[in-house]
């Protein structure tokens, strides 16, 4: 088995390659799978993924070719593959760009998980999830736990050599409520950067309340006509779609709809949206310090008071556009509003708890989805409802946005815990 140093030396010895880059992902994963509260499968996965990218500058253009280097790859096979890669790279006539250079670092994204045996962490999580269920006739029908250590390293021929070690947990749980002749469930999935068992227990206890409500939920009659309240999971999807339009790669490919100076909210009647792309956020499993090119991640506000104010993206596409790179940013922070959640929920509304999937299409100005559980508040009483859907114009809905003052972090999203939107059809 070739070590990284040997791969570097073999790549550097190739005379046709102008530059090269190696990425290495070492992953150790300990996994538990439960059927009801019984252990069904115990897994361990140890893997090393290496990708070698060869760049060839030719004819005023730049070409590249990437291929996997397996742990069993022999020296002569790798030499042949690099030769082959230079031949393929020479077929590509992309606009030249400059690779990041001369930076080294070795970063540990600190977490309690770094100091806990993965088997113990998985067992603690399992205990926490099952302990969250204090309801009669409720169950966690299935549970999957992944405790993962990932060491990511990127090295290039221009002096970049960066390593990041990070610990994450993925939990997938199925809270279920059983009634007479009927049983309903919710699907819950969490990516955590730390072993925050109190948060997990409280979150699942809330979801168990929700699934119990789903058992009682009925299709409302007649059709509802009221504002809709989105929660963190759907908000993260919504703002991901909105932010993606400002990626430098999209601008370079001419497939973006908006540019700097355009309005996200053309006629804001509620809160004005401010959105910052971030490299890392406390509590987010999507946090990173550099991207796959080795570019350090730099936070950037891309939407200010409802206006697009900047783009973001990798060194390659930033370079093409003459902009400063931010690296590939994976976290989104939205500025909270001033309306306390209690006040936001005080008037008639439909609070969406569980959708089959939020459909957000900024290009066609669409937002909608099938609602599997929501709470309808008629001004006096809160009732669980199901069997309905909603849709409408995204741009018009965003103009009406009221953002809660309460902040939450979920996955790669930090921002208002709830957002109220008006003008959407519920049917």
């Amino acid at each position, binding site marked *: 088995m070739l070590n990284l140093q040997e791969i570097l030396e073999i790549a550097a010895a190739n005379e046709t390659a102008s530059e090269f880059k190696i990425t290495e992902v070492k992953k150790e*994963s300990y996994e538990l799978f439960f059927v009801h509260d019984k252990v069904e499968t*115990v*897994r361990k996965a140890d893997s090393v993924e290496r990708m070698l990218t060869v760049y060839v500058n030719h004819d005023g253009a730049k070409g590249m070719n*990437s291929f996997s280097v*397996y742990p*069993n790859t022999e020296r002569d096979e790798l030499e042949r593959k690099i030769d082959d890669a230079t031949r393929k790279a020479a077929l590509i006539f992309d606009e030249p760009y400059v690779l990041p250079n001369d930076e080294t670092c070795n970063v540990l994204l600190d977490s309690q998980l770094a100091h806990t045996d993965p088997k113990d962490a998985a*067992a603690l999580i399992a205990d926490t999830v099952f302990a969250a269920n204090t309801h009669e006739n409720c169950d966690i029908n299935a549970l999957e736990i992944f405790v993962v250590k990932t060491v990511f390293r990127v090295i290039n021929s221009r002096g970049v050599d960066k390593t990041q070690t990070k610990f994450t947990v993925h939990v997938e749980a199925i809270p279920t409520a059983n009634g007479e002749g009927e049983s309903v469930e919710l699907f819950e999935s969490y990516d955590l950067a730390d072993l925050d068992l109190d948060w997990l227990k409280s979150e699942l206890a809330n979801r168990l309340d929700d699934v119990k409500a789903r058992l009682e939920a009925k299709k409302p009659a007649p059709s509802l006509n009221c504002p809709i309240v989105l929660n963190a999971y759907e908000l993260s999807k919504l703002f991901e779609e909105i932010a993606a339009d400002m990626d430098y790669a999209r601008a370079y490919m001419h497939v973006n709809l908006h540019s700097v100076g355009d309005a996200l909210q053309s006629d804001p009647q509620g809160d004005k949206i401010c959105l910052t792309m971030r490299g890392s956020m406390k509590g987010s499993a999507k946090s990173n310090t550099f991207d796959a090119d080795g570019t350090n991640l730099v936070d950037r506000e891309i939407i200010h008071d409802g206006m697009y104010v900047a783009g973001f993206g990798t060194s390659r596409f930033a370079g093409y556009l003459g902009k400063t790179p931010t690296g590939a940013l994976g976290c989104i922070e939205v500025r909270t509003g001033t309306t306390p959640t209690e006040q936001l929920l005080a008037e008639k509304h439909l609070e969406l708890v569980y959708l089959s*999937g939020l459909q957000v299409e900024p290009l066609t100005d669409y937002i909608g989805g099938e609602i599997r559980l929501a709470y309808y508040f008629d001004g006096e009483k809160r009732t669980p409802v199901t069997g309905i859907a909603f849709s409408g114009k995204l741009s018009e809905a965003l103009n009406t946005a009221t953002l809660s003052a309460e902040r939450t972090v979920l996955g790669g999203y930090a921002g208002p815990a709830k957002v109220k939107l008006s003008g959407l059809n519920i049917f």
Partner: protein
Amino acid sequence: MPFSKFLECRRGDCVALVRELKKRFRYVSVLGSDVKALSVRANKNTSAISDGSDVDCGFVVKLWDGGAFFEYSLDDIAGDKRFLAEKIEQELKLADNLKNDAVTACPLKDEPLEKSFRRENDFENFSEEYILKVCNLCRDLALAHSPNVANATALVRTLDVSKLFVSENRMLDQNYTWVNGMLMVNYRKGERMISAREGVASHNLGYVLTALPQLADRVVDKAAHLVEAKPIQPGVYDVITAPSITGLLAHEAFGHGVEMDMFVKDRALAKNFIGQQVASPICNMRDGAAATLSVASYYFDDDGVLAHDTQVIKNGILLAGISDLGSAAQLGTEPTGNGRRESHKRKAYTRMTNTFFEKGTDKLADMIASIKHGYMIFETNNGMEDPKNWQVQCVAEYGREIVDGKLTDNYVAPVVMSGYVPDVLKSISMISDDFFVEGAGSCGKGHKEWVRVSDGGPALKLKVRLG
């Protein structure tokens, strides 16, 4: 393409490791994967030749000794087998508080079989340079078609799968290929920007490379209509599903619902409806790697179970589910060759393969003519299942209005079809006599564990809510 040299070299190591671990466990198997994937892409600004995202190389060891299942994934199994066996056993030990709380299962079947499977293909006839030339041609054809085409991307993805399965009594290996070609355009008109795509798939590269350039006119023409598309007025309509949406319905409405690992977890209502009417009596539905030739047509699954062709629904009656080895052992049923992994690094679950409604006897023209006002809906965007509660959501890229029995050029987009599964399936009143399975899909379990799947069928006429 020949079977993987690397896996061939490790065949003896697999046998030796199985033998060593059999000293400690009642059931032992090793699955070796060597999946080569190539991605060639060209658009207005960039092009690339690189390994595709499906690349995978490594092994997974599966163990069972009467309680829980154990799996260990690793990159290579060369070296001292006694040391490796001890390491595997050590690494998979359960925490003390979980030791006595495992599922129960029937002994895993390990019937004797030694067999090699190969599917002929033409990959060696085409260089990456030629594939790139075809992609460049497709891009140029699309860009030349209209100044409104902001960008055009042509993509060819090839898959060359070698797998080796070794247990005490079984030694299986297989090699097969698949190719997907796609042409996508971004089309801008005034303030609106939309994307449209067309695809082609086959086990032969030559077929895809010939067919792809012929899609340029069609995709730009479609984009020109889609950019004018209006939102649909939400409501319940008479609807005709094009084969892609028929397949999406089969996949989301009943495919996920009959994955029998969901039966084990009491997560699927279908478990209680075997033998009962769940769809219109004219409906027949199948799933199986051996049911048709498409992207999920392997010879044996990732548990070493031979490919099946499972009749899921016959004449509207739910006949059977599909299962992986572990779920079948827990349920005391026969596995159906549906145990699949995203890669050697991931767990095997019950997964769909090629899932489709069978064709009927109606002419599509008659089906359209039978509708006073409704929509024909096309092209899968995405879908979401709910096997526990039988809700379904299918998102189509677009629909075309049917007025007085005629398919108009009034496009609507996007179109979300949703409802209660038995209501939707029982409303099927006509089924066309043609049939198409689209081999370009990917399916997740929950929000992860992506595997390649196909789905499709004929056109269906049904009554359903669109929004």
